[in-house]
């Protein structure tokens, strides 16, 4: 048992000993020991390390409950004192609130222990590979690595724990201005040559950005969206598209699909599949997550992500975690990478989309920008980079009437999101060939 898992176990034993009468307790731990090396101009911009351990306690008494988070030091005496103070604070709040009709607790004692092995290099060794491979380039990006832990414990006996030792390199090589090629490299076992090859491939692609950019007029264009670009579209949907609460309150941008008054292309099937990525198989309330939750099947609504709270409010079965997906997968199609340019013919090869947002949420209409390696293509040949363009179009067109084909593979992409902590999210999405995408500016 690792030191952090042992400490979590010890602190839970202590916390549960503090309970009295009809009190129950659940606890969620989120912890990491991460190195972050930020790079600009193929040199180090910021290099550092984060050791953090955050515990969230929920105290329950006769249907009344409240939550409090706290940071742990790792020192038993210090943390016991803080936990004791938190339980006292929670008792005061619980006494002041009414029973919560939407409270759904996991009373299962079944535990999930899932500890990944550590195959990581030191961050200093790995970033030196990145710096050495990019000395003749202008590389910008970040290396992140180290163990990520999640734990759940309850007064009903569950003691689940999850550890992954993962790394992620998110980088771009730049020519000038906004002309650049983006790439990522992530996983659990690091091979220096693989990273060197990724940098080399990005540098080769960058040579195509040297041509004079093409600027197109606003209008409809045939387009290939890379898996990363599809990821940006689906990422916007992840905000509130698939959740039971947004669908029940008619705020989902997929509402017309949910209502059955519209559909996406029969090619489109989307699921939440937590076993495909690095996310734990249990949620922060202790419920086990199904291996797959179908959300869109052959273009039609197939299911929703249902938090324990929504399950109780709307009389649904919980899908075990929150209502934003963290492990989306999309069924692949038949278009091979080698055939993409030929099938695109004349149009736009979109390497990345960026900064998407809704321009008409109820209609599922969204806007966003092209970014990084996006090219004008003629007769199946890359002609020149495209000056950045804004699109404004609907999901029902982009993933519906205008969708011609999906790529035949969906690479696993681990999330590079590091807001507050390193993400355990991932996506597996194919690219998409569109008959039209509408550019507006």
């Amino acid at each position, binding site marked *: 048992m690792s030191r952090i898992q042992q400490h979590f176990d010890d602190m839970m034993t202590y916390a549960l000993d503090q309970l009295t009468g009809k009190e129950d307790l659940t606890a969620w731990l989120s912890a990491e020991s991460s190195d972050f090396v930020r790079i600009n101009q193929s040199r180090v911009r910021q290099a550092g390390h984060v050791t953090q351990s955050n515990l969230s306690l929920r105290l329950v008494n006769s249907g009344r409950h409240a939550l409090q988070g*706290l*940071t742990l030091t790792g020192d038993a005496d210090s943390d016991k004192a803080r936990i004791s103070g938190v339980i006292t604070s929670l008792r005061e709040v619980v006494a002041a609130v009414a029973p919560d009709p939407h409270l759904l607790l996991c009373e299962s004692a079944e535990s999930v222990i899932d500890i990944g092995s550590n195959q990581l290099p030191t961050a200093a060794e790995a970033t030196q590979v990145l710096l050495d491979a990019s000395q003749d380039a202008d590389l910008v990006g970040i290396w992140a690595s180290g163990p990520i832990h999640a734990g759940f414990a309850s007064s009903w006996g569950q003691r689940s724990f999850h550890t992954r030792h993962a790394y992620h390199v998110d980088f771009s090589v730049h020519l000038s201005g906004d002309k650049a090629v983006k790439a990522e490299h992530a996983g659990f076992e690091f091979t220096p040559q693989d990273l060197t090859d990724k940098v080399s491939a990005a540098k080769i692609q960058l040579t195509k950005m040297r041509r004079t950019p093409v600027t197109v007029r606003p209008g409809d264009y045939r387009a290939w969206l890379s898996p990363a670009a599809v990821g940006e579209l689906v990422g916007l949907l992840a905000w509130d598209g698939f959740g039971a609460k947004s669908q029940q309150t008619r705020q989902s941008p997929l509402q017309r699909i949910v209502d059955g008054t519209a559909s996406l292309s029969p090619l489109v099937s989307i699921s939440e599949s937590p076993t495909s990525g690095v996310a734990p198989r249990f949620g922060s309330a202790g419920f086990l997550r199904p291996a797959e939750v179908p959300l869109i099947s052959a273009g039609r609504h197939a299911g929703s992500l249902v938090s324990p709270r929504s399950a109780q409010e709307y009389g649904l079965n919980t899908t075990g975690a929150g209502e934003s997906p963290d492990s989306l997968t999309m069924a692949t199609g038949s278009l091979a990478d080698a055939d993409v340019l030929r099938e695109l013919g004349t149009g736009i090869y979109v390497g990345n989309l960026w900064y998407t947002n809704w321009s008409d949420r109820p209609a599922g209409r969204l806007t966003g920008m092209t970014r990084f390696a996006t090219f004008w293509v003629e007769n199946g040949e890359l002609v020149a980079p495209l000056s*950045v363009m804004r699109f404004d179009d609907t999901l029902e067109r982009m993933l519906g009437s205008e969708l011609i084909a999906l790529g035949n593979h969906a690479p696993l992409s681990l999330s590079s999101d590091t807001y507050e902590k390193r993400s355990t999210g991932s996506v597996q999405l194919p690219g998409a060939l569109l008959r039209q995408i509408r550019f507006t500016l």
Partner: protein
Amino acid sequence: MRAIATAFLTSLPAGGHVSLRLSRERSETIRVRQSVVEPVVRDDDFGATVVVTEGGGRGWAGTSDLTPAGLQDAVARARQWARASASQHVADLQAYVPQSGKGVWRQTASKPWQQTSVSDKIALLQAADTALNASDRIVDREAALWHTDVETLLVSTNGSDIEQRYEMLVPDLAATASDSNDTQLRTLGGRGVCRQGGLETLDDIQFLSRAPDIANDALILLDAPSCPTANMDLLLAPDQMVLQVHESIGHPLELDRILGDERNYAGTSFVTQDMFGSYQYGSDLLNVTFDPGVQAEFASYGFDADGSPAERAYIIEAGVLKRPLGAHLSQHRAGMAGVANSRASSWNRPPIDRMANLNVEPGDQSMAQLVAGIERGVLMRSNTSWSIDDSRNKFQFGCEWGQLIVDGQLTDVVKKPNYRGVSATFWRNLSGVGDASTWQLNGSPYCGKGEPNQCIRVGHATPMCKFSDIEVFGGAA
């Protein structure tokens, strides 16, 4: 906090420049949704950031382990990274002397959060939630308060000793109206009505009395036609100006973006170093200040995370670009003056250049005069959508509420109002600036930037502003 810092400095081995920034944020969120009191959520987030600068390198470490051993480990890790980066840092740090400062900055609340019981706050929110329940067509509604108490202490081996303490409040009201054809959301400002201080903010913004108006607005929007598509005058309320200023003035003027740090994530900038001092960013009506000293504004402070004293400065004056939003290290790298805006989202992230309070100074027109000067236009309130390109140039924004202006009169309400433009030309179309009576304090708790990612609070106080000949449009057919 003081005891931890004193012990840290006392036990520190000699070598290089070392700083310790202790940060503690205690927060509480109370929400009533659809007549149900959701669980009260509290948080006590306490940790430290250590930065070591030595031998031409620099490293940092963030830790929640505040024991002596934990902080020693943080110093060792930061020093390790300083040494590893010494010969390959992007900045020339051989002659760099980190900033130092001394002082105490405290903001006081006239109605401190802690002096009102949880029960009374719940009762207030229940009253607001009830007031939002205006119709069967209101399908979702909520009233919430998010309070945070912030305490920091910065000490360093070159004499820094800075204590800062303040509290802040983010109130929220939201009503969703829906029928078989459409769904419309109306809010207090999408958490943009956020202030430093305590519960006095609720009095200032008339929190409770605005609840029925918000519900009624949502119902009006449900029945309203979509905003027309045309080029016309655009009158932006302060709760939309927040995003306009933030995205198309604030971000492109951050010096670390101009120096390329953000090119892989938040993006680059159409602004270059040579443009400062001469570039005409907007019309001569445009005056923008960096001002961390505005009472109650969301991102006010006395000193930034490096220890630089916060001072008001013109960023754009009479439309001309004056200085970038760059802190001590960025100023060293760029060789130009900036502002005190080195900030970190928490103890677990290193400071970088952030906006803090970035404000548009009031002009000389009343709301009535601004409206009267528009022959054909639209008023837009309350941001709901934002998107801008990598260089912070081509943008598109959407608002909750639109109202047509015809021959100097406010007329029909329109829904789904959007507009788009290009930063480099949009601000030159600024043709009217509201006076102090139209100037409001707003901001956002959610400005994202940096690798590793950091979500930070910003303040934007602005008046009503009028722009001429802007492309506006509505929802999908």
